[in-house]
C-alpha cells in the first residue's frame, strides 16, 4: 500500500495541475506500479478465455452504465488525431498496471490474510483513494462503485485479467466515445 501511495505521489509530482491528463506522469505511474508488482513476485498467469469474456462483459457494463447517465442520446466517435492516438495506449497501460497491483498483488495478499471480503474492501477503498488527488473528493463515490465492480469481476473470474480488460475498455471508451 505504501508503494502504491508513492507511485501516486510520483504521478502527482510529475503531472502538476494537469495530472489526470498528463501522459508522461501516467506512464511513470504505470511503470512504477508494474515494478512494484514484479518486486512483490507477481507473474503473468495462463490467460483464461472465460476471464477474458467476463472482462469484456464487465467493460461493456461500465460503458453502458455511463451511457445511461448521459444527457445526449447520441454517441459519436472522437476525431482521430495524434493526441488521442498517443493517449490510447498510455491509458491502457495505466489501467493494466493499476489492476495488476490492486486486483492482482494486493488482492492476493489481502485474501491470504483475511479472505475475499477483506481483499475486496481494501482494493476498492484504495482504488478510490488513489484517484482522489487526481479528480477530487467528488470522485470518491464514483471510484468506490467502479472499484467494487472491478473487484466483483476479480472474484467472479478468479483472475486479474477480467478487471484489467474491463478497466481498459471503460477508459478507452471514455476517450473515444463522445
Amino acid at each position: 500500500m505504501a508503494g502504491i501511495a508513492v507511485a501516486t505521489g510520483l504521478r502527482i509530482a510529475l503531472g502538476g495541475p494537469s495530472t489526470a491528463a498528463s501522459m508522461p506522469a501516467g506512464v511513470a505511474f504505470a511503470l512504477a506500479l508494474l515494478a512494484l508488482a514484479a518486486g512483490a513476485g507477481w507473474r503473468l498467469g495462463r490467460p483464461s478465455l472465460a476471464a477474458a469474456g467476463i472482462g469484456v462483459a464487465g467493460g461493456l457494463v461500465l460503458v453502458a452504465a455511463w451511457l445511461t447517465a448521459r444527457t445526449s442520446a447520441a454517441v459519436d466517435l472522437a476525431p482521430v488525431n495524434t493526441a488521442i492516438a498517443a493517449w490510447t495506449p498510455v491509458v491502457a497501460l495505466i489501467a493494466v498496471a493499476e489492476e495488476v497491483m490492486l486486483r492482482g498483488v494486493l488482492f492476493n495478499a489481502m485474501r491470504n490474510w483475511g479472505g475475499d471480503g477483506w481483499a475486496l474492501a481494501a482494493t476498492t477503498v484504495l482504488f478510490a483513494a488513489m484517484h482522489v488527488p487526481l479528480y477530487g473528493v467528488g470522485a470518491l463515490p464514483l471510484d468506490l462503485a467502479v472499484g467494487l465492480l472491478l473487484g466483483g469481476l476479480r472474484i467472479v473470474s478468479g483472475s486479474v485479467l477480467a478487471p484489467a480488460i474491463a478497466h481498459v475498455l471503460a477508459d478507452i471508451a471514455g476517450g473515444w466515445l463522445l
Partner: protein
Amino acid sequence: MTRRHGVVVVLVAVAALAAVWRVLPAASPAIYDGNCIADPYVSLGGSPAPQGATMSFPATAAPFPASEVFTGETPPQAQVLMEGGSFDNAVALTIRIDPVAEPAVKPSNGAIEGNVYKFSAVNAAGVAVAPRPNVLLTIVLRGTKSVPPPIIDRFNGTTWTPLTTQNSGCGNTFLASSTQLGEFAAVAPGGASPPQPAPSGGIPGALIIGGLAALLVIAIVVLFTLDRSRNRSR
C-alpha cells in the same frame, strides 16, 4: 467468496454506478482515465463567478522556473504552462489570468464558447512583460463541449488568430501553444451558431445499451460453455 457472491457484488456495483452517475453534474464526462469529474462550466456574469489566477515571481539571478498558473475550478478553466526560462527573471514578475468580457470583434472561424481569458505578465510597475523570443507557452482552456472540438484563438486587440489545438483531456479541456500572451478563447468552429449534432448523426444510446446487454449475455454464456467443454476434454 463464491462466484455467486462475486456476481452479487457486480450487480450491487452496477446499481451504485448507475445511481452515482445520475447525480453527477451534467458536464461530467464520467469515464476518462477511469474517472474524470468536472464541475459545470462557470460563465462570466453567472454565479458563481469564474475565477482568475495570479502568481508572482521575485527577481532572481536564477533562470525563470518551469511553472503553471491555473484558475481554481475543477478542472481549471484556464491555465498557462511555462517552461523554465520562459521570461527574463531579472525583474519581479506577476503572471495573471483573468476572465474578461468578449471583445466586440468576433473570431472569423466560429463562435466563442465559454469565457475569454486574458493572460498577462507584468512587472512591479505594472508594465507588460513579454516572454523571451521563440519561447512557446502552453495555453489550456476548458470548452463547454468536445463535439465539435473547439479551436483556441488568440486575440491581439484587433483580430483573432486560430491556433493549432489539441484535446487535453478531462472536462473538455484543450491546449494550444503560443509565443505571446494576450486574450484567448475556445472557439466552436462553424460560424456564429455552432453546428449541433444532427439527430440522426449518432447511434441512439438506447440501441447501444440494448446491444451491449445482449452481447454481454451471449458472451458470458458462450465463454463459460467453451471453458467447460475445454476442461472436460482435458
